[in-house]
């Protein structure tokens, strides 16, 4: 990995570098932190997020595991019971399902089953979402499955600054955290001030202010919505873009305050619209902002189809035009 350019405590980093640096900080600050997954050692992970970590922290702390996802999460649970803080890498979104049973029936419930005696501070990192021209099972957005399960927290970073801080905050959490990394944004760069004070992990953030319509997104779609907002601004419409950052818990207060001003809400994600995060946002905001809304909450998302072959994935994924089309429909309601 090329060294990040440095000026004082601020360095330009790609999201991959930011995650790598965040993981390194956690490994340095807490000897109980372990990283485990497939190909994360010498190879540094298929996306190089763990590049160089095994060399510096050893094979007992950066563990190349057998190729068995249930085994990885199941043994991570045992390590957590023994006092460790495992950070698990699932190589791709579509490969988390062999571990789904361990995550849902064991990881999510054990704290409650033990009446609070047991804590499982485990982070499960998953590169997720499409847009990189991958073969099937490499472009999925499984967040709703996990957000639907009590006991799990589900967060997603949208930029290198959040990636750097959120991974460290997730590792410090005493609850299991599903950490979704938007793989199509892995190479996005930003200035990261490693001496800054990060905001709370589970708070949403207004990333662009506006008064015409609120647009809510997380992970890979935040950049898309910011591009849409820039285009709308050229036409004289100021969109307010909110980066959810966390989908469980979900910070409705920030959305509510925005919608009270704009009266319009569009929710955007790559995952299928049906029974997705957008459906929950729509239901809750309709309940909270019924008299402020000038139009129904609209959703822009994936379709109720298997993720399509990559040559047509651009037609499946929400893009600038589909976001603006939904904004237009909301404003014209």
């Amino acid at each position, binding site marked *: 990995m090329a060294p990040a350019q440095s000026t004082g405590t601020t360095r330009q980093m790609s999201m991959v570098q930011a995650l790598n640096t965040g993981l390194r900080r956690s490994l340095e600050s807490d000897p109980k932190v372990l990283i485990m997954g497939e190909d994360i050692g010498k190879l540094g992970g298929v996306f190089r997020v763990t590049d160089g970590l095994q060399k510096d922290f050893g094979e*007992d702390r950066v563990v190349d*595991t*057998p190729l*068995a996802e*249930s*085994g990885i*999460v*199941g*043994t*991570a*649970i*045992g*390590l*957590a*019971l*023994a*006092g*460790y803080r495992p950070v698990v890498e699932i190589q791709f979104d579509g490969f988390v399902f*062999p571990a789904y*049973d*361990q995550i849902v*029936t*064991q990881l999510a*419930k*054990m*704290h*409650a*089953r*033990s*009446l*609070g*005696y*047991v*804590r499982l501070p485990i982070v499960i990192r998953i590169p997720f979402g499409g847009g990189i021209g991958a073969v099937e099972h490499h472009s999925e957005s499984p967040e709703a499955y996990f957000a639907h399960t*009590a*006991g799990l*927290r589900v967060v997603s970073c949208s930029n290198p600054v959040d990636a750097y801080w959120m991974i460290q905050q997730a590792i410090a*959490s*005493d*609850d299991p955290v599903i950490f979704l990394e938007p793989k199509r944004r892995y190479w996005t760069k930003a200035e990261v001030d490693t001496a800054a004070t990060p905001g709370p992990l589970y708070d949403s953030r207004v990333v662009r202010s506006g008064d015409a319509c609120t647009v809510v997104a997380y992970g890979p779609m935040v950049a898309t919505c910011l591009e849409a907002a820039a285009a709308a601004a050229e036409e004289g419409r100021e969109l307010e873009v909110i980066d959810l950052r966390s989908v*469980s*818990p*979900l*910070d409705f207060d920030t959305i509510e305050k925005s919608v009270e001003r704009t009266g319009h809400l569009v929710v955007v994600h790559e995952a299928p619209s049906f029974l997705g995060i957008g459906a929950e946002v729509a239901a809750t905001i309709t309940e909270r902002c019924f008299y402020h809304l000038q139009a129904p909450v609209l959703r822009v998302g994936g379709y109720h189809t298997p993720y399509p072959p990559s040559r047509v994935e651009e037609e499946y994924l929400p893009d600038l035009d589909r976001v603006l089309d939904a904004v237009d429909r909301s404003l014209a309601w």
Partner: protein
Amino acid sequence: MAVDSTDGTLFPPDSGAGPELIQLLTPEGERVEHPDYAVDLSDDEYLALYRDLVLVRRFDAEATALQRQGELGLWASLLGQEAAQIGSGRALRSNDYVFPTYREHGVAWCRGVDPLNLLGMFRGVNNGGWDPRENNFHLYTIVIGAQSLHGVGYAMGVQRDGTDTAVVTYFGDGASSQGDVNEAFTFAAVFNAPVVFFCQNNQWAISEPTERQMKVPLYRRAAGFGFPGVRVDGNDVLACLAVTRAALDRARRGEGPMLIEAFTYRMGAHTTSDDPTRYRLSAELEEWKLKDPIERLKAFLHKQGIGDPGFFADLEAESEELGKRVRNGVRTMPDPDPASMFANVYAEPHPLVERERAEFEAYHASFVDAGEDGH
């Protein structure tokens, strides 16, 4: 044990009676020696094992009765498996760690878990209900085989800590088909984890016989994963003690995992909801009654003149007392406060759970104003 070369089925049917079966006490109560495994117990130690066996069987019978009386929603009986559980359980040191299924009542007993704690889940007042660290005895796990991976992970942890803790993870013949158990074997082998896989082959996974789970004797699977596997007479408490102790010591010495197949029999139903008359012959049960784990130790004690009449009378009284304590304890076990379902969902505050708890409490409080009849 031969394996038919044409279709791979076990032939003759696996009776467990082959020379590989490790036995130190015959069904008739005769002490026999084994070249690799031995126990050297005092009279008091023999009597202590006998006491354990009798008391857990009594506890188990009481729980079955309490289910029949409607006090428990379900019970998974350990009837017939007492020796496998007491033998292996008494092989453990206090700093060893156990990952049980939902039937390890005898192991729980050896660990000092209050029997009443085991019943909360079956009564429906909690979904687990004890602090695993208190007795190094993890929560019961109902998803078949899932705990095998937790045991291996825990063993990987103590391996890193450099302590001499060893881990035992329990499972059954049915669980040996699960992916998790096979993944646990793989992880334990490649990381050389200090874990003992203790499989109680009780011949039945609810209604499915072992022939539906395996084509080779279970203990032989270990060889394919790269660690030793042995078959022990699961109704012989002495052999189970000796073999488990050896496997734990081996793990402690850093020699890695071992699989113990305790060849035993589920003399009761799978659970109180099950009806074994639909799928197995009573003749099979009668045959296994002759190998009863408690009767054989009792025969041995009598032959050796170990234990005076006072001991057996006291044990009978203690057994009655235990039954009474369990009976009263279950009947007076309070239902949880309904709002407690919102407790411990997360270790740190979660606004959705807090909001729903507030709504739940407000909804219930709304009936208070309407008075007693308003509910």
